[in-house]
Every structure is written in structure tokens, then in C-alpha cells.
């Protein structure tokens, strides 16, 4: 078996050294009735690499890869072009097969990268400190709500109706077991986010207000206004960003007054991957909050010879030290995805990110203009970055399915995201990125014209 280096001779020699007469002797502590004699029934035996690869390739071929269709899906996961060098680097064995850097003397590669990553994320979000990544945006959002509760000693979070519904669901699921009140709402199908409605829901019990920027419909809310209102009530503003590329074009949440900024970093370097693994971003505007942050932090220090080096630090917040008193139960982060993000972001740099953002926005504008010409389609947004909502005047879920059958991936229907809300059923969220071609835009326009006629 190709991954098992012991030979039968080795096994015999080792059993002799151990003083056991057979492998079974080593499993003597397993109760007899729980020990299996042979291989577990109902599973195939081992297979060659060639056979396994063929098996998985057959599965892969049953999916329609985004590259093979006009593609307009977003809603929290975006398709961007990732430079080939990113994948080259994350496949370096020294990155791929390393563990959490608990022995910093031989993990400076991972540690320095994490320090650079933290700096990139903090700057992108207009914050002072970012952590070394979390699972994904939705769980980072819940961790931020929890953190706000610790900071404010309050147990009510007010969620914008235009927060990604999966994020809302995660918060509600987690909160109900610990008595944290989640005040959520439904999105308003309006050209602008309903800031005044949101602000009206903030009260003196509120630990935090959670606002997505840009929001689930692609609209860009005025965070400064919300921040002011939240702060006036003694609450924190948590900004949620699912498309970091946007911040190459629009102001950072930090500079607009958000206290905690969390995000989904998948857009940069990580890829679609049918939803995971992704990359949770987590930053705080004021470093005074750092000791309440969840997750890993990498910090600068010096070694015994005075050379600069990096270590995981402030781990007294973490579960392996604090156990049930930890700020979070998180043990792993998303290290390899953080590396991919950091490499891609390094290649972009300030200039590249801004160009990338401009190109995304330009294509979104082109797409909106094209779709506005389709009879039956109304473009909802006054403003947007690379994603906007349209209404179709009919069940958008069915339109998406019909277009998929024709090889056009038209967007994410609100009916799939909000199955309970009939008033949203005719809306569709359409995203474009630099990977969208003008032919793709025309293909979508034409397909919608046919479908809606």
C-alpha cells in the first residue's frame, strides 16, 4: 500500500521488540465485541492511484465548472482569477505539511506570513489589528457578535436585514443555546438599504449592530451614519464584508467607524471550491480590544540573539490554555487559505487591488446597463460595487434553473436564500468580476430576454 512504508519484515521485527506476538495483542484493551476481525464490511478494498483518480474525475465531470459557462453567481462567494504562482506557493511542502506554529524556531515561514497577512487585513479594513484568520465569514461574524457581548456585557445583537441570510442563520442557531438575543430582519427591496429602520431598532440593551458592506443586494450602506447611532446607544458596529475586492474601490469600514470588521476572504486567492474551505477575516479598529478577540494572533518579538522573529501570542485567550474560559473554542484557523490570500494580495498590492476593483465595477455597470434593456427586468440598486439585484416579475428560482439548463449561470435567486419570503421571490442577485467577459454579459442578456418573453 503506497502510503504505508512498513514492510512485513519490519512489522515482525517491531512486534518482537515490543514483545507482542501479533498486532491483535496491541488492541487487547478494545473489548472483544467491538473488535472487528477483517476489513469493515460494505466498503471497497484499496485501489490504485489511477483508479481513484478516474473515480474522482467522473464526479468532477458531473459538475458545470464556472469557467465553462457564462457565470454571474456571487452572494457571498466570488469567482476571481487567481495567479498561477499562488497555487505554486501553497503547494510548497514546507507550507502545505506544516502544523500550527507551536515551535516558532522552525516555523518562521508560517509566522512571518501570518504577520504580513494580519497587516494586510488590518489595512484593508481600516483597522489596527487583525487576527490570523478564522473558518469563514459567517463564523467570524458570530464570533464578532460574541465578542461584542463580552466587551459590552450586553446580550442583544441587532442585525441588518440585508446581512447574508446564512450569516443571520448561523448567529441565530448559535445564540439560541446561550441566551443571546438576535434581532434580525428581512431585506427591504429598495434602491437603498433601510438605514433608518435599522437605527430605530438599536436600543440600550444592544451590544452590537451588524451591517453588511456592500450588502446582500450589492447596495453600499452608509456605515458612518449607523456607527454614530450605534455608538450613541453604547453599542459596537460590526461591519461584515463578503467581497474584499470592493475595498479597492470604496472606503474601509474602519474609517467609517466600524468597531469590528469581519469578512469572507475567499475572493482573494482562495477560489470557489463549492463553499469551502474559505477564510474568515477578523479585525478590530482599536487595538485596545485585542484581548477580547477570538482566534490566533501572531506577534513580533526577538530571539535570544536579538534577531527579529514572530510567535503566536496572547494565547491566554485561547482554549488550550483557558479551557472553558476561552474566548472561543476555535483551535484551527484557515492557515493555508490565509497564505493564498496573502500571496495573491501581495501580487496585487495597492495598485493591483484598485485596478481589479475598478475593472469589477466597470463590468458590473455594463451588466446592469445590459440587463436594464431586457423587458421585464428592473435593476434595483442605486449604487453597487460588483453585484446588484434585479427583479424579474416572475419566480427567479425557476428562471435560474431554466437558464442553467441552457448553460447560463445567471445569479443567485433570493428565493433560494429566503425561501419563506414570497415578496423576494422575483429577485435575483447578479455578480460580475474581472472574469466576466462582454460575451458573457450578452449571453446573459439574451438568455433572460428569451426566458422572460
Amino acid at each position, binding site marked *: 500500500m503506497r502510503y*504505508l*512504508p512498513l514492510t512485513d519484515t519490519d512489522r515482525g521485527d517491531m512486534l518482537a521488540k515490543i514483545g507482542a506476538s501479533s498486532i491483535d495483542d496491541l488492541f487487547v484493551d478494545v473489548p472483544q465485541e467491538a473488535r472487528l476481525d477483517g476489513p469493515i464490511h460494505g466498503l*471497497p478494498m484499496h485501489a490504485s492511484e489511477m483508479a481513484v483518480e478516474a473515480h474522482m474525475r467522473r464526479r468532477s465531470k458531473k459538475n458545470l465548472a464556472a469557467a465553462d459557462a457564462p457565470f454571474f453567481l456571487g452572494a457571498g462567494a466570488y469567482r476571481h482569477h487567481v495567479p498561477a504562482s499562488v497555487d505554486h506557493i501553497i503547494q510548497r511542502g514546507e507550507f502545505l505539511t*506544516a*502544523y500550527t506554529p507551536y515551535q516558532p524556531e*522552525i516555523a518562521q515561514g508560517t509566522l512571518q506570513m501570518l504577520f504580513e497577512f494580519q497587516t494586510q487585513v488590518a489595512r484593508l479594513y481600516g483597522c489596527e489589528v487583525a487576527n490570523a484568520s478564522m473558518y469563514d465569514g459567517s463564523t467570524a461574524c458570530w464570533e464578532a457578535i460574541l465578542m461584542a457581548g463580552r466587551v459590552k456585557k450586553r446580550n442583544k445583537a441587532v442585525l441588518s436585514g440585508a446581512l447574508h441570510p446564512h450569516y443571520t442563520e448561523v448567529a441565530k442557531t448559535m445564540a439560541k443555546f446561550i441566551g443571546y438575543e438576535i434581532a434580525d430582519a428581512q431585506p427591504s427591496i429598495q434602491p437603498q438599504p433601510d438605514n433608518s429602520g435599522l437605527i430605530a431598532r438599536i436600543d440600550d440593551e444592544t451590544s452590537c449592530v451588524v451591517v453588511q458592506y456592500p450588502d446582500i443586494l450589492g447596495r453600499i450602506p452608509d456605515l458612518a451614519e449607523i456607527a454614530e447611532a450605534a455608538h450613541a446607544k453604547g453599542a459596537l458596529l460590526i461591519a461584515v464584508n463578503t467581497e474584499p475586492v470592493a475595498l479597492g474601490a470604496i472606503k474601509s469600514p474602519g474609517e467609517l467607524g466600524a468597531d469590528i470588521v469581519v469578512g469572507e476572504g475567499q475572493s482573494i486567492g482562495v477560489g470557489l471550491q463549492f463553499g469551502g474551505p474559505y477564510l474568515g477575516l477578523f479585525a478590530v479598529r482599536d487595538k485596545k480590544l485585542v484581548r477580547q478577540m477570538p482566534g490566533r494572533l501572531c506577534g513580533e518579538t526577538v530571539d*535570544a540573539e536579538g534577531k527579529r522573529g514572530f510567535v503566536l501570542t496572547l494565547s491566554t485567550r485561547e482554549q488550550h490554555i483557558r479551557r472553558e474560559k476561552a474566548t472561543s473554542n476555535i483551535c484551527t484557523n484557515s492557515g493555508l487559505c490565509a497564505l493564498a490570500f496573502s500571496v495573491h494580495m501581495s501580487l496585487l498590492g495597492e495598485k493591483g487591488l484598485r485596478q481589479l476593483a475598478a475593472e469589477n465595477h466597470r463590468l458590473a455597470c455594463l451588466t446592469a446597463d445590459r440587463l436594464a434593456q431586457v423587458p421585464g427586468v428592473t435593476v434595483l440598486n442605486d449604487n453597487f460595487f460588483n453585484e446588484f439585484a434585479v427583479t424579474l416579475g416572475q419566480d427567479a428560482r425557476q428562471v435560474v434553473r431554466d437558464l442553467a439548463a441552457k448553460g447560463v449561470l445567471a445569479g443567485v435567486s433570493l428565493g433560494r436564500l429566503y425561501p419563506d419570503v414570497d415578496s423576494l421571490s422575483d429577485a435575483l442577485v447578479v455578480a460580475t468580476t474581472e472574469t466576466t467577459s462582454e460575451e458573457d454579459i450578452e449571453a446573459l442578456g439574451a438568455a433572460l430576454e428569451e426566458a422572460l418573453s
Partner: protein
Amino acid sequence: LEEPLLFEIGHADETGVDLPEPAADAANRLGGFDRDTSIGLKGLHEPEAVRHYTRLSRQNYGIDLGLFPLGSCTMKHNPRLNEKVARMPGFADLHPMAPQSTAQGALQVIHELGEWLKTLTGMPGVAMSPKAGAHGELCGILAIRAALEARGDARKVVLCPESAHGTNPATAAFAGYEVEDIPATDEGRVDFEALKARLGPDIAAVMITNPNTCGLFERDFKKIADAVHEAGGFVYCDGANFNAIVGRVRPGDLGVDAMHINLHKTFSTPHGGGGPGSGPVVFSDALAPFAPLPFVKQEDDGTYYLVEEESREHRGPSFGRMTAFHGQMGMFTRALTYMLSHGADGLKQVSEDAVLNANYVLRSLEDLLHAPYADSGPCMHEALFGDAGFENGLSTLDLAKGLIDEGYHPMTVYFPLVVHGAMLVEPTETESKAALDQFITAFRSVAERAKAGDEGLKQAPYYAPRRRLDETLAARKPVLAWTEPDRD
């Protein structure tokens, strides 16, 4: 050559990607939120970036370089086929909200992997969405809580052994439970009698790692499970060490109600410097209905269907959603590839070789190092030692750093907490006997120095990219991001 920070070598107005310059005067629809300040990012051209990260990588130790005996972390070889499969366009370039008719192969992989996990564990239910082991623990505990609440039972306490991973109590607390310790016997196992005495109507669950973090199989697990069930509670098994028994023992046969499985431990997905993980959870019949959304069902016509919030008629009493989208697909493809490669016979060999290697290490070192549970029976996948007999104030940490100079990553140190100066060595099944013998020789040499009180060890490592780092300074004056140096 020291590698500077990217912020020290990067360019403020250069980029390593070639994109069109935006038209300066283009109208935009950003609603007046245009960014008008610098972000502060730096860019590298591709040659600079490749070199920066290649050089950084060489300051790391990885499984590809040598034996990586971190106990409880299962640093086994990461097959390269897994990486190739995960990059197939039908998996890597697929949107999570792709219409289900265009993602049947992906849904099938999720379903197929779930079936493997159920068969391997002998459990009837599975949740695929948890993002990592700790997230899986949370999933299991939330399912327990949901099941208890569904029967109107407001139990408040979760019992964990002292030797548990820190995530166990943290998870229970995260789910709103109080945590109490379970004592251990002298031989390193859960004290069944003490546990049984503590059972009662307030105990929601016990969380037990099996094999446990002392590297021992919990002989009484089935008795414990029966007693807990008798008392109306649930049994959570921490599956971090499933690699010791996979293919040979089914946790379902031991009375487990929920167990997470670390795909990055047992099923060889890469650790990647600290993640991403993936933590599917298997469930007993009692808990399966409460599993989180979303999940994959196979329809009668053979197609696969993702049950999300929308599917009120299908979702049943699910406790809800734990994450956006459907889980760590990129890890599922890798893990399934690994399982198919090994098959039922190969996985059985995996656990046998893992246990054999650990016992070989245990019996090759026990004459020299204190092995507190050496007489408690064979160890499973890891061997545990303590620091008794070290001279001159030398510590487990010193021994660990000395191993670095021998060319090895150290074992896990100071865990589990129940052994003084604990050293937990997990060689895994993907090490050859020759590699083990070389490691044992090196380990013995350093251990002999520790027992002889060799002061030189206190400054080790000498031959690593860095000498010992000042962790106190890092924590006292945290520098967590790069800032422009002050100008003179």
C-alpha cells in the same frame, strides 16, 4: 540571508498582476463611497513574490522534510493525489450556490464521503458542514442540547476528563453548559466508578476522547456509555484520535451518540500551517434528526439534493445552520480520495501500523524516559512520557528544543496536563522503521543529555532559523501588524 517583510520590500505603486488602468474619468455607481485614501498595501512583482515566499517556506519544518511526531495532531503524509483531485475544475471552480442540477457530482461526493464515515464508524447519521474539529464538537454538543430540549430536559452540566483537549470544555461552555472534570485512574483512564457516581438528571453529556490523550484505549467506554444512557445523558466521543482505530473498531459499537472526525488527522488532508480543518460529525439514531442544515439527500431517482433552510418539509428538527454554505468541500474531495485509495483493508492497516509504530517508540524509550502508563497496556497511536529524572532544572521544553537541533520537529509538550512535563509522541503510520530508528536514536541522545543535566540544552536550538524567541516580550508589548518605521 534574512527575508525582509513584504511591507519592507514591496512597492506602493507597482503590481504583480497586469490589469487595465481604470479610465480616470469613468462615471461610477459607488454612491459616493469612493475610497479616497491609501490602503497601505504593498505589491510584489511575480519574481519577487515567488522568491519571498519560497525563502519563507524554507524557514518552516513540514512532514515532507521529516518525522513530525506531534502527539494528538496526527502529522501523517499528505498524498499528492489528494491535491490533484481537489484542483479538478468541477470541484475547485464550482460556486456553492450553483444550481443543484449543475453540481450533482459535488453533492455526490459529499454524500459518498458521508456514507464512508457512517460505515467506518457504524453510526447512522452524519453532519458534513462543520469547518474543523472544534466546530464539529460544537455541532455534536448542540445536537445533544437540541435533543434534550426537544424532550423538555434542561440538563446543565457536561463532564470532561482532566486529560481532555482544551477544546472540549471550551466547546461545552460555548454551547452554554457548565463543565465539570471527571477524575482519572492511576493507569490513565477515566475512573468509571467516580463517573458513575456523578451521573444524574443534571448531566447532559460526557465528552470522552477515545483513544484518550494519554494514548490509551478507554476499556470501560461501553460501560460508561451504557451508564450515561441509563442516566438519560448522551455520550460525546472526541474523535481526534480516530486514526488509531479506524477500520478496526467502530465507535457506534461502543455506544457513542456523537463523534467528530478530523479529516486533517485521520484522513490525511494537509494541516497547512494551522488549517483549514474539517470536522464532520457522526450521530446515533437519537441525535441524527437534530443534525444541522444543510445536508445532502439522495432522491429515489438517484439524484442528489441539498436540504437547506428552504426545505421545511425535509429539514425536520435540525438545530439550524452552523456556517454559510455546505462545509469544507476542498477537504471532502481530498479525504474521499484518501479513503478510496486505502479502502477498507488499507484503513485497517493504517490503524494497525499507527499503533505498531507508537508502541515501538514507547518500548524503545521506556528504559530511559519516565513512561507513566507503560504498564497500563499497549498504547494506541501515541506514546506518553514525563520529565521525571531530568537534572539541573532541565525541562521538557529544553528536550524539545534539543530535538530541533537533531533535525526533528518536537513532539507535543505539556499535554495532557495530567502528566508532569508531558511529552506525547505520535509517529503515525506513514513513517518507515528506518525513520523511526533514526528518530529514536536522536531522541535518546537528547534525553540522555537532559538526564545528565547538560546545560547546553537550555539554549537549544542552535541550528534552527531562529534561536529561542522571547514570548513574554511578544505578549507584554504586542506588535501585531507592521507599521512604517519612524523617520529620523
